[in-house]
């Protein structure tokens, strides 16, 4: 196993927010956990191959100590898609609270059964 400490932080935060998503009593906590989960994934991909004093891949002369540009290009699109997902979640939350007057999973389940 070949881990940097930075990657361990990102993986730990991913699973903490997964735990928060499972045990959330309301819809808002679920949305917040999903936002945190997405940023943890971004952090994990960017921290691959991290060294102290690493340089961005910009400029005419690139040295040896340069960050990997491929995960960065993918993660920019991932962040934009993440905010799109958050906007959809918020809209569904508002529609839910308008219809059922609550955002608790237990009460929603009971109201759905009736």
């Amino acid at each position, binding site marked *: 196993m070949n881990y940097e400490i930075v990657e361990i932080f990102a993986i730990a935060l991913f699973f903490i927010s997964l735990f928060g998503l499972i045990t959330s009593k309301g819809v808002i906590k679920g949305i917040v956990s999903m936002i945190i989960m997405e940023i943890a994934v*971004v952090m994990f991909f960017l921290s691959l191959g991290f060294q102290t004093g690493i340089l961005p891949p910009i400029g005419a002369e690139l040295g040896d100590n340069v960050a990997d540009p491929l995960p960065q290009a993918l993660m920019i*699109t991932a962040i934009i898609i993440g905010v799109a997902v958050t906007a959809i979640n918020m809209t569904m939350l508002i529609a839910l609270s308008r219809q059922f007057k609550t955002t608790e999973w237990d009460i929603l389940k009971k109201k759905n059964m009736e």
Partner: protein
Amino acid sequence: MIYVLLIFWITSAILAIQARKLIRIIVYLAIFSTISAVCFFMFGAPDVAMAEVAVSSFSTVFMIVCFEKYFTLVTDVSPDAPKDLKFRYKLSKILPPVVFTLILAGLFIYFIPEGTVNTYLKDLYLERFRFDVGGENAVTSIYLGFRVYDTLFEALMLLISVVGVAHMSCRSEHEISGENFSGVTKSDSVDVYTIRIICPAMLIFGMYLVLNGHVSAGGGFQGGIAIASFFICRYLIYNVYDVRYGKIMSFEKMTFAAIALLASLFIFLGFYVQFPQIRTAYLISMNMLIAMKVSFGFIIIFYRYIAFERR
């Protein structure tokens, strides 16, 4: 240094998950996003850091706007939940998620590949991006040249999300248009004067990011969000709501069509190889189209939230 930042990062995330009041959740999320942007910058990714800062400030504003109407900011997230329960009941609720999460984490750690990270693609891209695509910024060259499919489908995802937000909101377009809302924001306070001064600087900064995206840090997405925040400040200053949805949405769809057309002309039909002298023009125009698309999408999302709020 980076480890201290990471400890603060993970602490603020746990606080955001654990907090019970809505305003605290929003504040902890903002702190979390800012610290993660600083971490991205230290990982050598200024583009991602800029995108993260812009997105987090935008989402903070729209979370406040969204929660302000429907929930009170200082109340609990779950006021109806029962507080005093027996310990065994709590344990039986908590234990299965803990076991499930621990099993998943163990599987993840068990299946991680051994050995160092393969740097074949990194070396290839860093060696060839200047001759194959052009520009000085490797990240921009990758998402506009080597992996342009990703950008196309990302723009499609944003378009679908905007259509979904506009579809799921209850009020129709005719109900909204022409109304002048007077509401929470006072248009003569100190904040509004500050915003009036900052506003043009924001627009110029966004345009600089877009036009300079192929030689330095920046690009279409970041500049697009900065330009969108300029138009959002218009609401904060004048406190009016008179955006024409239909036009902006059709503009956004046309911009997406233009992005797809330009990318397919240059990348898939091989204009890139035939005319190497217009590569810079391609990069700049593609960045501008992406910025227009992203800013149209974010303007529609934000004004839909305002339409929700003021009814």
